[in-house]
């Protein structure tokens, strides 16, 4: 664990302690399960966005991808009656393809990641609404694909499935980012793309790969979230998810300048955000303040990290 991971973990623990003291309900099994489920769902796409951020890029499209793929999944299963396996594979492949398109536009045409994925955000939202004719989609009673619903609302030994899936994905992502050749190249490109290229790193491929990962993980969480809500209104489904993901990554120690960040940190960041939302619920803070509380706590955290971080680092040689 890096120093930053420890800081985020301590912050998360402190926050949990505060909420638990203020509201004993926090520690109830149901509440913890609920949080874990949300952490799982949000954590999966946050990992993808975090990997993009490590390259020094950004992915603003995940919320809209979630809406578009949710709508399509519902239509494939319910209206077109595709076999579940085919529908799942198509959705994941589509997520990967969208990510690949972003990656190619960014690395081949040298467009800025912000612009490419912002256009993605707008395009896929529009596509979702158009395809669904703006009507809410769902899976009805879910007959025929109960096992899929279980992936969203089921649990293993009390641990919600989405959390289990996130842990599995997180473990793979950890190996990829912190132990593999690709991961090392990811950080090198994020720190200094020119030097990485001079060292023979295929920088375009590394960066494009990150967007493919992000698109793929957005698709995976889109499937889970679609079944979790069972009601996908194309205009609002997945709204702000990209910001949750960016916030999770940044809270978790990623630098928007690239080259820094850990998978554990991103997951802890995602958890921190969900505990904050839970806090708003449990402490009877008006729901309208939901985002304001999150913003305030993240800002305080950033200020504290900067102030104490500077004291610790001391002058640079």
């Amino acid at each position, binding site marked *: 664990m890096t120093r930053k991971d420890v800081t985020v973990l301590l912050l998360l623990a402190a926050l949990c302690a505060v909420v638990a003291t203020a509201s004993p309900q926090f520690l109830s099994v149901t509440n913890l399960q609920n949080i874990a489920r949300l952490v799982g769902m949000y954590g999966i796409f946050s990992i993808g966005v975090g990997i993009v951020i490590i390259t020094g890029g950004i992915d603003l499209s995940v919320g809209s991808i979630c809406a578009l793929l949710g709508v399509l999944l519902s239509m494939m299963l319910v209206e077109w009656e595709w076999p579940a396996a085919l529908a799942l594979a198509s959705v994941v492949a589509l997520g990967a393809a969208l990510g690949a398109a972003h990656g190619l536009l960014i690395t081949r045409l040298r467009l800025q990641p912000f612009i490419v994925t912002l256009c993605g955000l707008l395009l896929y939202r529009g596509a979702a609404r158009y395809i669904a004719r703006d009507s809410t989609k769902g899976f009805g009673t879910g007959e025929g694909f109960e096992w899929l619903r279980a992936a969203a609302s089921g649990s293993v030994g009390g641990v919600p499935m989405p959390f289990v899936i996130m842990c599995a994905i997180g473990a793979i992502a950890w190996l990829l980012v912190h*132990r593999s*050749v*690709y991961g*090392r190249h990811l950080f090198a490109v994020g*720190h*200094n793309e020119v030097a990485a290229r*001079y060292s*023979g790193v295929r920088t375009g491929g590394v960066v494009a790969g990150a967007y493919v990962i992000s698109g793929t993980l957005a698709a995976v969480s889109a499937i889970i979230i679609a079944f979790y809500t069972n009601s996908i209104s194309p205009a609002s489904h997945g709204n702000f998810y990209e910001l949750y993901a960016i916030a999770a990554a940044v809270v978790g120690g990623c630098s928007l300048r690239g080259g*820094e960040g850990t998978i554990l940190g991103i997951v802890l960041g995602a958890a921190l955000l969900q505990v904050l939302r839970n806090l708003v619920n449990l402490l009877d803070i008006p729901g309208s303040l939901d985002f304001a509380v999150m913003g305030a706590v993240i800002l305080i955290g950033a200020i504290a990290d900067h102030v104490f971080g500077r004291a610790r680092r001391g002058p640079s*040689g």
Partner: protein
Amino acid sequence: MPVPILQMSAISKRFPGVVALDRVDFDLSAGEIAALVGENGAGKSTLMKVLAGIHRADSGEVRIDGATVEMHGPVDAARLGIGVIHQERELIETLDVAGNVFLGREPTRGGPLRLLDRRRMHADTTRALARIGVVLRTSTPLGDLSAAQQQLVAIARALSLNARILILDEPTATLPSSDAARLFDVLRDLRSSGTAIVYISHRLKEVERLADRAVVLRDGRNAGMLRRDALSRDRLVQLMVGRAFEPPSIRPEAPAGPVVLQIERVRTGRYPDADVSLAVHRGEVLGIAGLIGSGRTELAEAICGVGVRLSGRILLEGRPLPIGSARDAIRHGVCLVPEDRRRCGVVAGMSIRENVTLPALASYARAGLVARAYEAAAVRRITTALAVKAASIETPVAALSGGNQQRVVLGKWLALRPRVIVFDEPTQGVDVRAKVEIHRLMRGLADQGTAVVMISSDLEEIVAESDRVAVMHDGRVTGILSRADCTPDAVMRLAVA
């Protein structure tokens, strides 16, 4: 004797784990050029950063005109009349000359919008440049100027801030010698008008030519001071390294082996109308000399796959190499030690270990996962062999001195057993000891059969280290000198062609 304009006494500065300065004294009088000399890590930069208000000394005293001063930042230093021309120029390339000279203190025409007084900026800039005898269009973006011109703009900026003490950190590191001579004239003029100048340089020849006095630091302490009459390169080197310096032995003419690397009619993006053909023989170091901007770096980058190659072939042992990217080049054993170390040579934010294994990480991995113990052991072997000075292989490269960073770049390539290695200004900004070691290494590689190409603006280096020298001018090779014919004069004549 008049009171010196600047007195620094018993300055100490400690960073975590190192004593950078240990009770260092440094004086400076108006109208003198004092050279500050020492190996990298000797404390020159730290001492000047204390003077520039960037670092605060742990103890010691800085007096200006006899009065003790406290500095809390570079702004204080500027107000006290201290101007610093950094090694990495800190001006903004997209801004024009006048904008750079007035950066941070732009004159306004008043009013609520505080509109820029552009006329005054340009007029004053022209005047500031005229003071050092420079004529430039003040509306030219800085990035369009040569390195030398940019440096003169930086000096004009410092002077327009009423700097009485001017600190120049390695000002000629990126300048061709003709521009350096121009800079020296400017400095001498400033001296006679009473400016006090601190001149930091590794180029002892320049120090010999220019300085009234040389202060030598070694390991963060005063190692000695030489006045003009006693100033010689040999004495300086002795004080710097603390032992007598051995002049490089004269090597016999290298027997011409078979051609290893052949460059055939290569055209680069910068000089699309000129092509270059060169051959490197087994066992030789081919020097490439020329002024900055003569197309040497572009040639190196074209050979090594990082730059544009419009046409032409690169043959290794007679077979053409399909090089379309740095990756291709490296796979075929063609490596570049780039000129801009911090931008192209190292990933400064990553550790020594991660930098050394970056080009061939896959060879330290099994099933895509890096075998970390194996990697660390290999890196330790390489850093020990190259005598990289660092706390551990996990130290970020950003924390290393120039010489040690260059050793890391070399380590990166040596692990690959390169077949062709192109050095672009290999010893720029590195200390004397690292320089000698880099030269020895270069020679060792050539002896083992690697084709070695060395680009250098340092004439001494070119003459001493090359077996043959190709001189470039405006993208073309204007002549190739054998060892016997290679004198600084001959090189220079071809370079200005």
